[in-house]
């Protein structure tokens, strides 16, 4: 039977198109539009072409923020991934203790971002915060609002506290899917604990680890609320990450043009890095199957 082609079917996708248009295409295009124009207040726009992009690419401020952002993401990934795996490995496998563990682990994930920032802000204060007070009583000088190193340490500790559970929970799910027979076979084969991890657990966790790394990378690369609440990007600019810088530019200085160009480049960088990550991991997996 021949199918009749009815062009009117296109009308059926209109609701979705409208939704997508309002939710992403129009806002996105507005940003694109701003990024090529300049304005002196009011609604007077004029075309500047690639000017903003050129300027930003030569701006030291942006490169510094980019560098800090990369450093931050690499540090938290290199802490959260191994730590998450370790936590997942040491979690109880069944029974009531497993459930309690799961609930406790999910708690940090359920706290709103700005609350996390506030919690750590208070926690670290030298006068009333548990952490800050304890450290200063121990004679360790610690002040996250004055000292750049302390600020970084606190921001990183905060992110690790907030997100390690996510990695751990994903890994835990991966571990639970390993049939008991694998562990039994390993015992019969006299595999060491390390071999069990290397040849049984790690391969089975691969898929979820890939997701965990990707999620944590994207999220940490876009981090805004928590460090903003905690340090406001300071002291100086030492914890000013890309999105904090972006907001300063767009709302603080109201430089809409450069901010728009910034946003687009920011977006493309995240897309690019995530794509590279993903491709590398997928190819590695394919090679493994084929060879």
């Amino acid at each position, binding site marked *: 039977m021949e199918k009749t082609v009815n062009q009117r079917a296109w009308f059926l996708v209109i609701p979705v198109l409208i939704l997508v248009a309002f939710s992403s295409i129009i806002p996105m295009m507005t940003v694109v539009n701003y990024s090529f124009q300049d304005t002196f207040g009011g609604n007077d726009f004029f075309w500047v072409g690639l000017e903003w992009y050129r300027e930003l690419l030569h701006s030291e401020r942006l490169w510094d923020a980019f560098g800090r952002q990369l450093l931050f993401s690499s540090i938290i990934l290199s802490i959260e991934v191994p730590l998450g795996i370790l936590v997942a490995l040491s979690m109880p496998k069944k029974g009531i203790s497993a459930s309690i563990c799961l609930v406790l682990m999910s708690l940090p994930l359920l706290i709103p971002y700005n609350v996390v920032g506030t919690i750590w802000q208070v926690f670290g204060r030298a006068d009333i915060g548990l952490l800050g007070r304890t450290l200063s009583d121990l004679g360790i000088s610690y002040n996250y609002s004055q000292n750049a190193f302390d600020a970084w340490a606190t921001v990183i500790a905060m992110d690790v506290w907030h997100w390690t559970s996510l990695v751990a929970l994903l890994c835990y799910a991966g571990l639970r899917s390993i049939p008991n027979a694998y562990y*039994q*076979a390993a015992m*019969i*084969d006299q595999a060491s604990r390390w071999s069990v991890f290397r*040849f049984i657990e790690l*391969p089975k966790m691969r898929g979820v680890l890939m997701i965990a790394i990707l999620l944590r990378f994207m999220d940490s690369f876009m981090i805004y609320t928590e460090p903003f609440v905690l340090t406001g990007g300071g002291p100086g600019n030492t914890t000013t990450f890309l999105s904090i810088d972006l907001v300063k530019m767009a709302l603080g200085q109201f430089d809409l043009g450069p901010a728009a160009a910034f946003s687009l480049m920011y977006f493309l960088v995240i897309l690019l890095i995530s794509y590279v990550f993903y491709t590398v991991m997928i190819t590695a997996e394919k090679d493994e*199957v084929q060879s």
Partner: protein
Amino acid sequence: MASITLENLAHSYHPNPGGDDDFALKAVNHTWEDGRAYALLGPSGCGKTTLLNIISGLLTPTRGRVLFADEDVTASSTVARNIAQVFQFPVVYDTMTVEQNLAFPLRNRGMEASYVAERVGRIADMIGLQADLKKKARGLTSDLKQKISLGRGMVRDDVNAILFDEPLTVIDPHMKWELRTQLKSLHREFNHTMIYVTHDQTEALTFAEKVVVMHEGRVVQIGTPKELFETPAHSFVGYFIGSPGMNFVPVSVAGNNARLGDETMKLTHDYGHPNGDLKLGIRPEFISLTKGVGLPVRINRIQDAGRHKFINAVLFDTEINIAVDASFQIETDMTNVILDPDKVSIFCDDWRIDAQSAGKKDGGVT
């Protein structure tokens, strides 16, 4: 190498086992003699895997002891027991090659490279993995994976025993035969104690010198295939071995008279006056269909199974099966059967009773 003795072994997966029903294994007493090949036969859920795991030390029994020769190893680790075990489902190390998989147990024991290479080569030859040695184990078909599992079980030649838990389930029938032959030749060469779990009776009967039959967490009989067939110690063995299984007809026995329905039949032995639930057991092969002599039957249907015909009939309200040669002509006036008195067994509460020591109840368990 040593004999393996199980003493009053019981195991329950419940943390606080109550009655008998909570136990996956109930009082197993058995000695696996050194260097023999055993088949462990039993239906699904009867505790075969549990028993193997206890022998290899993967599980600690709730009660009882495991002895290697005279040494109590109940609390010893799997490593200390040095036992090879092949699991019911293929277990392979995905990221390793086939070769690395086979070498893994040897490398973990710190064997020399030349010895490892030699053993891996031998085993790969034996089970037909030579061509695949360099392939990654992931992505292989499930029968190849099962062969790898099997190979890892056989690669160590210094083990105390090799336990196979239904190792050939996913392998196609032709290959099954081939691999079983290889296992047997391996056994002849190295004389390892082998325990081969299966619920396929043909497999059990062709592999082993001795077949151990389990039923509901108990060992009900140990014997040669012939003994299991001719003198099943428990009605379950009679029913489970042979296809179709043994026929059971309610009976009352007095001395050497057996009363079936309203007919009496002479037995070859004197059974005294046993009490309990009595059944007469007879294999379909030992019943002959006759005209006019013997016990009356009503024929339900006839099934042609190649070399045999199976006749399903009713004898005093009990369904029975009769096996006759394919060439046997069945006529409409054949409405009687004769049970070969030499081949009749009497079961009391499911256990076979001996004519000499009538009333013995715990027959097969030694």
